């Protein structure tokens, strides 16, 4: 028995040796060189909807079919898990080669994690002249150029034409030069568009603020810095001095803005308070799509998710001028970034270039809803917009780029996360406290911010 087993074993070993020898020969002559893998981590921003996942798979196939040495793969992670998953990958020495598309806030929050692509641009003498100016500066810091620009998301007003018709109001102007379209005009308009359960407006004596069914204006899908950027403080979207050492949150322009918003919520009732927003959220729709906010301030990224089969007519208008006659319209800018600890960085750079190349950038932006960052593709994208959204004024979109906030409302500040959380705590007072003493709240917010900055600079 033992002898038989030994013979079978010997035969098996011999066969293995012969087969592996043949296999080795075949491999040596036929196998292609091993491809360098570039994993693109999607989850911090847009890109996780089922339609987008399918489109990204098609994009990866297109790349892989045309590249022999690099294999592109999208890793889709739910937004609520993205932060932990990314950190786990980095700490496990398994950083993805690219992360994106994501915007200024994620780039600023994780600023120490990204590779500066300046050497890659210099090495290839990469031509940056085709990109819109803001697209090349928003995510660029003295010590970090986070990535090649992919797309811009300028901001403007979305308005419900049916609500205007029902109120007997003229639509807001589409003319960026019309100086009469200012903060007071918006307020007057918004108050006439705000309706309680009995169709009374805040201008009527019988108005019931507890039963509002339609608010005139909303800008609630942004944080405290974003909401106050339009009021034109010297540092615009950044609540600190140029050297990041002094808190400037309670600058007079921001105090004015906070008071204007507070009055809009609690005195004039044309902006939904925290409970109103929670009620809108409970409908499962976005504020504009729910039909409960007549004029909605947002970005182009809202178009792909918010302008789908709405039961009312709508159009776009420029953001109004602020109290000082200035227009500051927030802008978002997305790109793909390369983590410092990633392997295959040269391959990642090739993929990054391919994604924003003139041949691809329009298709890539169609997936993510961004306006391509290349000027040369403006017409191609405009044609796409005309086809996808035939009933809106497309000129409003492109012109908005000229009014961006700088410094940016999501740009880096020391302890970015702490600063944002601290200021968003102030935001919860704005939307939750009808009796808030605005100046005192802003002063306290500034004091808290200064403490965070002082602690940071004490150890840097």
């Amino acid at each position, binding site marked *: 028995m033992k002898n038989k087993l030994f013979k079978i074993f010997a035969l098996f070993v011999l066969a293995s040796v012969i087969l592996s020898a043949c296999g080795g020969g075949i491999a040596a002559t036929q196998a292609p060189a091993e491809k360098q893998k570039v994993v693109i981590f999607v989850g911090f921003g847009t890109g996780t909807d089922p339609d987008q996942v399918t489109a990204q798979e098609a994009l990866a196939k297109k790349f892989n079919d045309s590249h022999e040495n690099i294999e592109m793969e999208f890793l889709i992670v739910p937004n609520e898990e993205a932060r932990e998953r990314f950190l786990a990958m980095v700490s496990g020495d398994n950083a993805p080669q690219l992360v994106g598309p994501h915007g200024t806030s994620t780039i600023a929050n994780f600023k120490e994690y990204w590779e500066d692509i300046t050497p890659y641009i210099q090495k290839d003498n990469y031509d940056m002249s085709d990109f819109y100016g803001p697209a090349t500066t928003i995510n660029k810091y003295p010590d970090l150029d986070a990535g090649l620009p992919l797309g811009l998301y300028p901001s403007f007003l979305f308005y419900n034409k049916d609500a205007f018709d029902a109120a007997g109001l003229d639509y807001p102007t589409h003319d960026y030069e019309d100086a009469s379209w200012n903060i007071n005009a918006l307020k007057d308009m918004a108050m006439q568009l705000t309706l309680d359960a009995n169709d009374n407006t805040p201008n009527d004596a019988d108005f019931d603020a507890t039963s509002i069914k339609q608010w005139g204006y909303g800008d609630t899908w942004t944080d405290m810095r974003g909401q106050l950027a339009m009021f034109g403080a010297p540092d615009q979207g950044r609540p600190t001095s140029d050297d990041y050492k002094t808190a400037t949150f309670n600058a007079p322009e921001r105090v004015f803005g906070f008071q204007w918003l507070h009055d809009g919520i609690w005195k004039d009732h044309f902006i939904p308070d925290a409970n109103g927003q929670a009620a809108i959220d*409970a409908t499962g729709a976005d504020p504009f799509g729910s039909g409960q906010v007549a004029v909605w301030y947002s970005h182009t990224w809202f178009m792909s998710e918010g302008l789908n089969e709405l039961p009312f007519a709508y159009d776009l208008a420029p953001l109004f001028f602020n109290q000082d006659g200035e227009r500051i319209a927030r802008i978002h800018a997305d790109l793909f970034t390369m983590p410092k600890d990633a392997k295959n960085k040269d391959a990642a750079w090739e993929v990054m270039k391919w994604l924003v190349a003139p041949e691809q950038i329009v298709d890539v932006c169609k997936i993510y809803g961004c306006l391509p960052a290349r000027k040369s593709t403006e017409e191609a994208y405009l044609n796409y917009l005309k086809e996808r959204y035939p009933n809106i004024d497309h000129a409003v979109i492109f012109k908005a780029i000229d009014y961006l906030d700088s410094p940016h409302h999501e740009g880096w500040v020391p302890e970015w996360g702490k600063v944002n959380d601290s200021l968003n705590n102030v935001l919860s007072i704005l939307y939750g406290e009808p009796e808030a003493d605005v100046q005192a709240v802003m002063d306290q917010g500034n004091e808290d911010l200064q403490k965070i900055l002082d602690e940071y600079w004490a150890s840097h």
Partner: protein
Amino acid sequence: MTFPAFRKMSLARREALAGYAFIVPWIIGFLIFTIGPMLASLYFSFTKFNIIDPPQWIGLANYERVFSGIWDAIRTGDSRQFGDPLFWKSLQVTIYYASIALPLNLAFSFFLAVLLNQKVRAINVWRTIYFLPSIIAGVAVTILWVRILNPRVGVLNPFLKDVLGIQNPPGWLSDPEWAVPALVIMSLWSVGGSMIVYLAGLQGVPTDLYDAAKVDGANAWQRFWNVTFPMMTPVIFYNLVLGMISTFQYFTQVYVATSNSIGGLGSPQHSTLFYNVYLYQNAFRYFDMGYASTLAWILFIIVLSLTALIFRSSDTWVYYEGQLRGRG
């Protein structure tokens, strides 16, 4: 096949060795996945560590940050004097929640268990109905309650207003004063687990004790207080320890309920900034893993101390049948 040395051992020794062999996989897992990370986090708590750069030893600086300024804060009554005011705020929120939710959960689940221990028709159906909510995932329950508690479109406030006549019902999760009570109400939805443990305990109380009490002329309340309650103290003790630990680790419900609200996680106005929420923020939002590890160890010591306190106090109020211990 057996080894000769193994055959020479006594039966008891062989059984012991076999037992150890069976638990070796668990011990290995425990050492690698529990003790290992615990020791690593203890080391990190003495470092400055942002994940991408190697940990940098800073001694007791993280602990100093937590505990500095205590006397100034007490002396002036100004919580901003604390080295890290948000640490103390998060501890205060957690203790506030625990002090309401823990006794309420213990009492409510005990009450339900007593009800479900009665001899009534279709009792198994009732037991199933009351247990069901506890097996629904915490995220789903939280989303459900966020809607129920919504002051404008939820069903609770109209009930309070129209049925109970409360003219200004609370804003619940959007009101800093009522956010924690709202979470306490939410927690009562999930008492099914401890209720079942109580129910099992109630069914184990010997009926001859009730018979003897009846013979002695005890009424229903006296039978409950002098028979049921003492016999149930080991179960209460068990639920108290587990409940205390879980309330100090409260996280998921707050994360789901507040992360997309105005003001973000822990809002409004830090009223739901629970200890674990603050720990999470430090680890994954501020990338301060060293400080987050410090917070984790302080929480561990707090929970360990409270557990020890409960165990120590158990001599005076937990009755173990057949055990000569304390007054029991």
